[in-house]
């Protein structure tokens, strides 16, 4: 990258290098990998007289996989996360497009600040606030009432859960899309226009394919967030029907059955890993067909 000679004079592995390389390795192995290993291990333990005992039995797996509520919860969670991924991608795209190609640099900077801030702030509290807005006697119904329209029932439905998912993931998805759209070669867009390609056709034939990686990564994050979220399905969806994360917390907090909760958690991890693998294949796949 630069003209200076590579620094071969230093030995590659020395105490200095080890000092800086080990903290992350040690910490993440000890407090990220190890807990996950214990989690998998614990799925084979038994609960006897409300006490946890180390064991190696498949009972928890059999129990979970033979219960109908688990499949219902799995399918519901997966379906909701899928819908959230598509919906949030669609909601974000026109806004990301406008911010990348139309907005002034100043507006764009302001928008980026306004998107980073909610990502790091009080998701829990914002969901509570949606509860106030969507409640039976909440703000939306208050406004509808003033207009003489009969109240709508949103809280406690999947729609309310979806509002929460959008709240959770929209800022990040928008940021990722905005980033990947600003990487799109503007000359390509102009060339398409000059060659007589209409605006909509340009968007779908030039902009979307160029920003594909960002669109897929954004959608994948939306799926990831929605799939694992606990707060929205509980406080907005009223846990009707329960999602996998609600199953986990119920098993732990009221059922006191950690091993079964661990089974559900491991299934979630496997599902997410499979999704990540498939989606990264989609994102980085060579574009085949006619060019």
């Amino acid at each position, binding site marked *: 990258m*630069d003209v200076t000679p590579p620094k071969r004079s230093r030995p590659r592995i020395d105490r200095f290098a080890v000092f800086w390389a080990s903290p*992350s390795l040690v910490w993440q192995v000890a407090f990220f990998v190890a807990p996950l290993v214990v989690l998998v291990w614990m799925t084979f333990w038994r609960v006897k007289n409300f006490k946890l005992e180390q064991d190696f039995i498949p009972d928890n797996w059999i129990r979970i996989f033979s219960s109908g509520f688990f499949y219902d919860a799995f399918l519901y969670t997966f379906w909701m996360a899928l819908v959230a991924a598509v919906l949030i991608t669609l909601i974000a795209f026109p806004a990301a497009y*406008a911010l990348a190609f139309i907005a002034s640099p100043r507006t764009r900077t302001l928008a980026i600040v306004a998107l980073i801030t909610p990502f*790091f702030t*009080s998701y*829990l509290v914002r969901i509570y*606030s949606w509860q106030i807005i969507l409640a039976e006697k909440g703000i939306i119904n208050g406004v509808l009432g003033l207009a003489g329209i009969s109240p709508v029932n949103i809280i406690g439905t999947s729609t309310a859960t979806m509002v929460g998912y959008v709240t959770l993931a929209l800022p990040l998805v928008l940021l990722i899309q905005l980033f990947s759209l600003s990487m799109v070669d503007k000359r390509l867009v102009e060339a398409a226009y000059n060659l007589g390609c209409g605006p909509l056709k340009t968007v779908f034939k030039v902009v979307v394919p160029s920003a594909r990686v960002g669109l897929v990564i954004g959608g994948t994050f939306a799926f990831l967030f929605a799939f694992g979220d606990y707060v929205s399905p509980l406080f907005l969806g009223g846990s009707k029907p329960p999602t996998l994360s609600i199953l986990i917390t119920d098993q732990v907090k009221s059922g006191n059955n950690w091993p079964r909760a661990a089974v559900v958690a491991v299934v979630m991890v496997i599902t997410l890993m499979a999704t990540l693998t498939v989606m990264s294949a989609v994102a980085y796949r060579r574009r085949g067909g006619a060019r």
Partner: protein
Amino acid sequence: MNAATVRWILMGYVLLVFLFILAPILTLVAFSFNVDRFPALPWGGFSLAWYEAVFADETVSTGFRNTMIVAVTTAVVATFIGFATAYVDYRYQFTGKRAYLALASLPPTVPVVILGIANLSFMAAIGLSGTLTAVILGHVVIAAPYAMALIRIRLADLDPAIEPAAWNLGATPWATMGQVIVPFCKPAILSSLAITAAVSFDEFMIAWFVSGIHETLPVRILAMLQGQVSPRINAVGSLVFLVTVALVVVAQIAVFSWRRKRPLAGGGDG
């Protein structure tokens, strides 16, 4: 439809999207000052009663103290780990580097509910269940990747030849680290301290699973949410929101201060 109309429609749409993002925050703050017991329209009148109730609530002040202890410790440890990892990525090439970096950046992609139950059993196994230490250990895991990302972005602006130049002039690696790398990374370190503190300040799932009786503030809020609807939640939520926004804004100011000075970067300590 001409191009100008399309532009206006699109920018109007952007405004709507941001309204959606801001709506819960505005509602939250507005109803924290509403005198009515149940948050609903029409507006009942201005009151500070809910804030007084929150400040008088001992569980809230204890929760706040616990959260501060956890957030500050997490910020310092996570920023150190993030800095170390970013530096290793910047300076060294080695086999397994991809796996090393993947491990260092993966934790935020795992749902916190899973980290929560994993930590629950793990902390019980090593005898730390129900302690603030357990919360800190878990929070550093998810916060360190953000620190790494921020500091790595800053290091990308530092000419990789500067360090070897100092070595060749006889400076030890430690001296170069202290006199070149760390001062150069200062704004990123500051912003990473703020962001990691914000991540920890907001995290409620791991904390809920492992903190036991030592509730942090978000865990207290979660407990309040499971109880009755009360504007006290708005009040405490507004306060939490204020703290995290302040942290994130500090972080962003630090980042923008160095992005603006960017043309100088690579030419020494700009």
